């Protein structure tokens, strides 16, 4: 525990002394919802063919999923920055295990993710009139936590195994493109062409966003969602194991 609290202290200090980090950490998904969500809704009318669900409500889960993905991506960049500054290797000689190091980092990311979710849900409901399923809030926060942790461990694998910034840039761009667009984040996947729909069904972002959508507005089929939730948890656990292994190889 002292090692994890030291990492929380470090990450907190770095964020707290930089207002741009603070703004970005807490308001990024809300900004996305207010700009992209409202813009799409206004420009295309009601692009979602789900009765009783407007685009802002539909996109709320997508923006929370995107936030967990974005936090992981930014955090993996911090591995690169720390490696460039040399502090990454020095930290690996501090009195803590590799697993504690990763858990400390992910704990801080979870704090950010839950804070982001609270702000986005609260202001989203207030400003855009999104009707939330308050009875599903515990499920929502569990989904945000597992989702953020899963993507953090997933990205950590690439951040630790790739040495060059340009290669990492290329890989993350492809990951963003495939994971975010071939998923249920921006649109329902049922009307998609068969090939794209198959990719989206196998995409862990879809599994996460579907659960988040159920937890925010109650849309989805519980048996399918249970399967998706289980699949994502397995995905997160495998990523954690590989990330710890990668860190041992540093």
């Amino acid at each position, binding site marked *: 525990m002292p090692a994890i609290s030291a990492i929380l202290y*470090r990450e907190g200090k770095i964020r707290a002394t930089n207002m741009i980090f603070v703004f970005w950490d807490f308001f990024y998904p809300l900004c996305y919802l207010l700009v992209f969500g409202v813009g799409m809704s206004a420009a295309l009318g009601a692009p979602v063919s789900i009765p009783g669900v407007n685009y802002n409500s539909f996109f709320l889960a997508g923006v929370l999923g995107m936030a967990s993905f974005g936090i992981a991506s930014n955090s993996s960049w911090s591995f690169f920055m720390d490696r460039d500054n040399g502090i990454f290797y020095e930290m690996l000689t501090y009195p803590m295990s590799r697993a504690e190091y990763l858990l400390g980092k992910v704990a801080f990311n979870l704090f950010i993710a839950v804070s982001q979710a609270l702000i986005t849900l609260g202001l989203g409901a207030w400003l855009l009139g999104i009707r939330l399923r308050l009875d599903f809030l515990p499920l929502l926060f569990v989904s945000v936590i597992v989702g953020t942790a899963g993507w953090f461990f997933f990205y950590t694998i690439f951040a630790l195994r790739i040495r060059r910034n340009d290669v990492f840039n290329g890989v993350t761009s492809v990951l963003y493109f495939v994971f975010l667009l071939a998923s249920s984040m921006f649109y329902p996947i049922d009307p998609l062409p068969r090939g794209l729909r198959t990719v989206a069904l196998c995409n862990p972002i879809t599994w996460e966003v579907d659960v988040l959508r159920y937890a925010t507005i109650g849309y989805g089929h519980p048996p399918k969602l249970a399967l998706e939730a289980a699949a994502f948890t397995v995905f997160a656990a495998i990523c954690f194991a590989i990330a710890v292994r990668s860190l041992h190889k540093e």
Partner: protein
Amino acid sequence: MSTYALEVENLVKVYGGRRSLFGPRNEPVRAVDGLSFQVPRGAIFGLLGPNGAGKTTLLKILSTLLAPTSGQARIEGFDVVAQPLEVRRSICMVLQETAVELFLSVRDNFLTFAKFHGLDGQLAAKRAADAIALFDLGAEAERKVQDLSGGYKRRVQVAKVFMVDTPVLFLDEFSTGMDPILKRAVMDSLRKEAARGRTIVLTTQILSEAEELCDDILILDKGRQIARGDLNALKLLTKSVSEIVITFDELPQGIERVIAALQPWQSKIAGSTVELVLKTEEAQALDAVSALAKMGRVLRVEIGGASLEDIFVELTKKS
């Protein structure tokens, strides 16, 4: 409990030979090749060697950053592979590359480091203030490290090791980027730490630094030990090397020819001073001095044994 702070047995590290993700296949390189040695507690131990000798790889293994391919290494009795956490609790490391928290102030760098090493708030604040004073960082204490020069960043990095009481310190070329006054102060502080019983393991390319600081020196080349001992023991390994310095009131005409005839290992003429390094026995070195002294009026003569630099060059050439 072992009397040694460090024990290394048949340590081997082979790099490469496998394809890495997104990278080409590398040919295997034996960076550390069967090293065995011990370092007693409280010693200042120098690891010397040319670039690529394996010094940094060895320090990385000892500090649990790298796993050895085979062999064993123990720090304070703890195995670096089987008990990495106990090893990390026993060590403090200054890496060769600058390692600082760029987005934090100098003081917050120290406080964060203290937090990782389990110092409580008041003690951490006191140790941070002491480190700031020792390294003359008072004017920079509240500035973010990203705004400091490279030399100041290095100060912050090195200052941290004086905040904690870990029994073993690893310093990989600690004086890089330091001005001479600060370097002297740090070297004095390192001697005090060793006198308190801390074991200091350092690598350096500046041989005068090792000559001045180290009780015990290990010279490496291509991952292997080529010499080991204190400075006097190492000098015995190259006892046929003599350094001669002669200052004339005026540089004699034709002295270059006489110097060339002596076939020196190294030679330098600066003003009216001639410096020679001869690979010869003591009696012949005296004959050389005599021959040179006949050429003009001599103001000063010095004859000495090999410096660490001479020993280092001699041994690494041999290897």
